[in-house]
C-alpha cells in the first residue's frame, strides 16, 4: 500500500536512468555484504588488529600489567639483543627449524611417493599416515612423548639393544631438542597430503617418454618429479618453516613447563611466554613477538626471492 502511494511522488519524466538504479542496487548489495561480514570485521578489529597495534605500542614500553605502560623507546630491543637467554632462545629455535623442517619434508615426500602409487588399501594408508597431524598438537601427545623418551622408557631401551646408552633424552640437554624434532617429523601428514596432490598433477606422458629414452627411476625423479612438484615443495618449505619458528606446545609440555633442562628447549616462543606470563615483562615480550614477526617475514622474503632459481611454474616454461 505504501508503495502505491509513493509511486506518483516520483517525477514521471525523471525515470531513473538504469545505471543509477544499478548503483543503488549495488550499494544495497554492498551494504548487505558488509552487514554479513560485520561479525568477522568486528572480530578482526577487536581480536586481531587491535591487539596487534597495542602490542606494537607495548614493545616500546616497560609494562608489568599493573602499572601503566612507561615509554622506553628501543630499550626493550637493546636489552633483548644483549640478553644471553634471548640469544640462547634464538640459537635453539634456529637449530630446531634447520633440523626439523627438512627432515619432516623429506619424510613427507618419501611417504607421498610411496602412497602415490595405486595399490590396495591406499585410502587406509593415507589416513593412517595423516592421523598424527590431527592429534599432534595436543598436550596429551606431549606427555606421551615425554614418557617415550624418558630414562628406561621404550626409546632408551631400544637404543641400549644397539649398545647406545644416553639414559633417556628428556633429561639430557644435548638430546632433548631432538625429541621435539622427532615429534615434529612424526606429524608429517599435512605436507604429505600436499605433496600427494602435487604428484598427482605430474603428466604420465613425461614418465613414459623418459622411460622410452631409458631413464631410470632416480633420473625420472630428479629430472621430472622434482621440477614438476617444485611449486608444491616451495609451498611446503614456506609453510613448515613458518610453523617451525613458532613451535611452542611441544617444547612447553615435554620439558615440564620449564623449557629445559638447562634451557635446552628454550625455543623463542617459550622464552617469550616466560617473560610475559611468568615474569610479567609484557613490554619485553611484545618486543620479542615483533622481532619474531620481522624475522619470519625476512625468511619468507628470502624464500620467495630464491624460488626464481629452483621453482618451475608451467606458465614460465611455456
Amino acid at each position, binding site marked *: 500500500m505504501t508503495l502505491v502511494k509513493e509511486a506518483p511522488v516520483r517525477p514521471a519524466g525523471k525515470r531513473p536512468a538504469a545505471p543509477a538504479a544499478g548503483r543503488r542496487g549495488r550499494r544495497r548489495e554492498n551494504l548487505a555484504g558488509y552487514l554479513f561480514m560485520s561479525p568477522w570485521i568486528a572480530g578482526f578489529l577487536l581480536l586481531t588488529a587491535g591487539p596487534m597495534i597495542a602490542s606494537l605500542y607495548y614493545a616500546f614500553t616497560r609494562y608489568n600489567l*599493573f602499572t601503566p605502560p612507561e615509554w622506553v623507546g628501543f630499550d626493550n630491543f637493546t636489552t633483548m639483543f644483549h640478553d644471553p637467554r634471548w640469544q640462547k632462545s634464538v640459537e635453539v629455535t634456529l637449530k630446531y627449524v634447520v633440523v626439523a623442517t627438512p627432515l619432516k619434508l623429506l619424510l613427507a615426500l618419501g611417504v607421498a611417493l610411496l602412497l602415490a602409487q595405486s595399490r590396495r588399501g591406499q585410502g587406509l594408508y593415507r589416513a593412517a599416515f595423516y592421523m598424527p597431524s590431527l592429534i599432534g598438537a595436543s598436550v596429551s601427545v606431549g606427555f606421551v612423548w615425554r614418557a617415550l623418551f624418558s*630414562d628406561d622408557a621404550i626409546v632408551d631401551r631400544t637404543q641400549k639393544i644397539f649398545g647406545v646408552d644416553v639414559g633417556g633424552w628428556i*633429561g639430557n*640437554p644435548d638430546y632433548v631438542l631432538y625429541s621435539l624434532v622427532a615429534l615434529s617429523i612424526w606429524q608429517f601428514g599435512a605436507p604429505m597430503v600436499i605433496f600427494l596432490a602435487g604428484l598427482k598433477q605430474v603428466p604420465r606422458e613425461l614418465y613414459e617418454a623418459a622411460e622410452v629414452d631409458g631413464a631410470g627411476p632416480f633420473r625420472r625423479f630428479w629430472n621430472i618429479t622434482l621440477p614438476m612438484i617444485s611449486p608444491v615443495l616451495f609451498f611446503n618449505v614456506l609453510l613448515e618453516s613458518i610453523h617451525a619458528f613458532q613451535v611452542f606446545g611441544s617444547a612447553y609440555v615435554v620439558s*615440564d613447563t620449564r623449557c629445559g*633442562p638447562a*634451557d635446552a628447549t628454550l625455543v623463542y616462543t617459550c622464552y617469550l611466554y616466560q617473560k610475559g*606470563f*611468568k615474569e*610479567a615483562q609484557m613490554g619485553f615480550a611484545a618486543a620479542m613477538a615483533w622481532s619474531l614477526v620481522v624475522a619470519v617475514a625476512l625468511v619468507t622474503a628470502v624464500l620467495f626471492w630464491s624460488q626464481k632459481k629452483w621453482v618451475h611454474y608451467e606458465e614460465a616454461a611455456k
Partner: protein
Amino acid sequence: MGTGRNVERRTILKAAGATAATLGLAATTGCGGDSDSSGDGTVTLRYAWWGGEPRTIAIKKTIALFEKKYPKIKIKPEFTDYEAFWEKFQTQASGGNPPDVFQNAVGFLRKYDKRGVLLDLKSQADAGNLSLDNFRNGVLANGQVDGKQIAIPVGANTMALVIDLKAFKKAGVEAKFGWTWDEYFAALQTIQDKLKIAGDTGYFSIMYLYDLYLRQNGKAFFTDSDLGFTEDDLTQWWTDGYKRVKSGLVADPKKIEQVKPKSGLSAGLAASEFTWDNFSIRYEGEGESDYGLAPIPTTDGKQTGQYLGSLMLSGFSGTKHPKEVAQFISFMVHDPEVGKIMGYDRGILATTEQYDAFKPADAQNKGVAAYEDEVAKAGVLGKITPHPSGADVIEAAFLRLGGEVAQGKSKPADAAKALFSEAKAAFAG
C-alpha cells in the same frame, strides 16, 4: 524490483539481527564469572588455591561446612597446580578480577602488595569480622608487611631433610640434631660406598635451603630490597655442589629431570632430599621405601637457620564483600572441624583451636608434628627473612641456573653472575 527490494530488506534485517545476536552473545560471555550478591542477599565469593587432589577434596569439604554455617555466603572454588595458579592469578589480578579469597605464600606478598591487590585484613579484624588471636609460635607475623596484615597463615612449616629410612639404616648412618655439613656429606659418602646410590637429590638448587645456609653464616638470601649475599658466595656454593654431582654424592640431574613430577627421593635415585616438612607426606604414597624427617645440617653444630614459613589466605583489595571475605578466612583458620579435615596438608595447623582439634593418626603426620616439636624445643627457630617483590622470579631463576650448573652447561661463576643480573631485573619489575 519490488520483490527484490523486499528480499534485500529482509536480508539486511537478518544480517543485522545475526550481528546483534553475535555481539550480544559475546557481551554475555564477557560478563560471566563475576562474583556478586543475588536478590535474596546471598553473597558469592570466589576462592582459589593450588595443590594436588587430596588438598582439593579436603578444601571442598571445608567449604561445605562453611556454607552450612553461613547460608548467605556461597563459595565458588577455583583450583589448579602451583605454576598455573600464579600465571592465572597474575592475569586475573592485572585485569582487576582476581578471586575474592586465595591461597598465598611469602614469596608473593610484597609483589602483590606493591601492586595494590591485597586486602588489609587489620581493619576487618578491628571490625570484629576476623579473629587474629590464638596463632601459634608467632606465625601471624608471616602475613604482615609494612605494618599491614595482608595474609593469614593456615599452617606453619619449616625446611627439613627427608630421608629414606631403609637406606640410611642399611648404610648404618644416623641423622642427628646439630650435625654439621661435613658430617652430612660424609654420611652421603658412606651411603654411596655401601649402597651404590647417590645420597642427595640436588640440594644446591633449592633457594630456601641456601637461605638457611646463609642464615647459619650470618647472612640471608634476601634483604628488604636486594640479595643478601655476594656472587662469590654463590659461586662457592655451586662449585661445591657441582663437584658432588661429578663424584656421585648427588644424583645425576639428567635422571632427576626425567622422573618429574615424582621426586628423586621417592623414585629411589637418592637417599635424601631437602624440602618443606609438610611435603614429606607425599613421599609415602609415591615411593616404595619408608621416609622420615631428619634435621638440617649446621655450620656450627647449633644454628640451623630455620624459621616457620606459611601458606596463607589473602583477600582481594577490590572485593565487593570484604566483610564476608574476612568471615570466611576467620572460619577457615579457626574452626576446629576445618582443622580436623585439613590435617597437616598445608603445614602444622596455625591456630591453637585447629592444632588441638587434629590428632594425627598416621605415621607421616605424626612425624611432621614430632619434627616441628623437636625443632621448636631445640630453640633454633628464627624470624622469617624478607621476600622482596620479585622473589618468585628469582626462585625460578635459582632453580634453573643451579640445574644448568649441575648439568655442566654453565660454570658456577657464570651462573652466579647471571642470577645477579636476573635478580636486578626482577626487583625492578
